[in-house]
């Protein structure tokens, strides 16, 4: 699970062009759409692309994504559930 979380952080930084950040800047429970990372609605859509491209999970409605993308923890938990 922790490897998945570290991978996710790296993938997010690349996919979303978060140039100034490193993996250690993103805490597992940090609100991804909170003030620190400055992500917006387009970034939320890129998360959907990331899930499909890297994990083969398809989300058909952006509204579903809101809960899933709350934090690295919720995102990792979701992926683990889908993979099982």
């Amino acid at each position, binding site marked *: 699970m922790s490897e998945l979380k570290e991978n996710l952080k790296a993938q997010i930084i690349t996919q979303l062009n978060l140039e100034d950040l490193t993996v250690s800047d993103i805490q597992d429970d940090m609100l991804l759409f909170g003030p620190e990372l400055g992500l917006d609605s*387009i970034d939320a859509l890129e998360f959907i692309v990331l899930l499909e491209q890297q994990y083969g999970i398809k989300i058909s409605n952006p509204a579903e994504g809101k809960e899933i993308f709350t934090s690295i923890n919720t995102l990792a938990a979701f992926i683990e559930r889908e993979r099982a």
Partner: protein
Amino acid sequence: MNKCYVTYNSLITPLGNSPAENLLSLKKGISGIQMFDGQGFAGESLPLAKIASLRENERFSSLLTSACEALRGQADAKMLSSSKTLLILSTTKADLSVFPGDTFQSAENILAEKLKLAHSPLIISNACISGVVAINTAADYIHASLYDQVIVLGIDVLSPFITYGFQSLFALSDEAARPFDKQRKGISLGEACGCVIVSRTRPETAGYTVMHLGGSSSNDANHISGPSRTGEGLVRSVRRTLERTAIPRSEIDFVSAHGTGTLFNDEMESIAFQRLEMDHIALNSFKGTVGHTLGAAGIIETIFSMFSMEENLLFQSQGFAETGTSCPLNIITENRSFEVNTVLKTASGFGGGNASLILQKI
């Protein structure tokens, strides 16, 4: 107040290949939107407003060529080649079939070959507000006495590039667009080419002419692809247009809104029109009828608005059944007779742009 004249010319849309055909379709309440298989990135069926006669892989060139031929047939040859004539082309992506080659060069080549213009066309590429901005820019050139007439031609065609792009934003509906409706789910893409001639004096040739009283644009300063929650840019543009034209709100008979059918755009417009105290004015979107035609939208929807003026007929906002915006608007629910003397046309687009113009009967 500086005014100039606007006369519609060629018009090719999914509703017809001429202004007369388009008008007849509008009167009959025909929709230009149909389901097509295999259009989405994963092969999904999508509702699109396609022009049936266009050859696949040559959609842009065949559409522009047809429009130029129609324009040539209806316009004075001397006027077309005059040094006092300019052509402004409004398009978001031009000819993607030649991509990664120069998509705009392809357009310029066709215009040069078909129209023998004295000056190279001026191209405006300003997302979905291009058409309204192009008409306003034409009026500016007339008022600056730089040209006697400006041909404004707006065109965009369907392509996987555009379809997949809007899909990636989850902006496309899986059914025909329902602007301002409670059940709206997104845009139906369309394609079209429309042409108006903006002139300093009233043209002597036949063709319906109205006055362009003024216009403006304004940025939302909020987000590059989502509209301002308060409709700030649209409000400022309409206010600026009202100031420039010295037209009171009470004189506006009809608003041709942008109305794409997305949750966010239509909600923003409803807030803006309420802030402008225009929520009681008869209003529609043409995008439930002819889809979102991007760079052509501002031109063809201005022409449709001119039909309303010519016929004293308000056209139904197709796809609308029940108010789905927090500020209810006076949406036109069926074609009905109405004296339409003064029209406000608005547009909003990616990049936070908003634009508006006012037309009035002579």
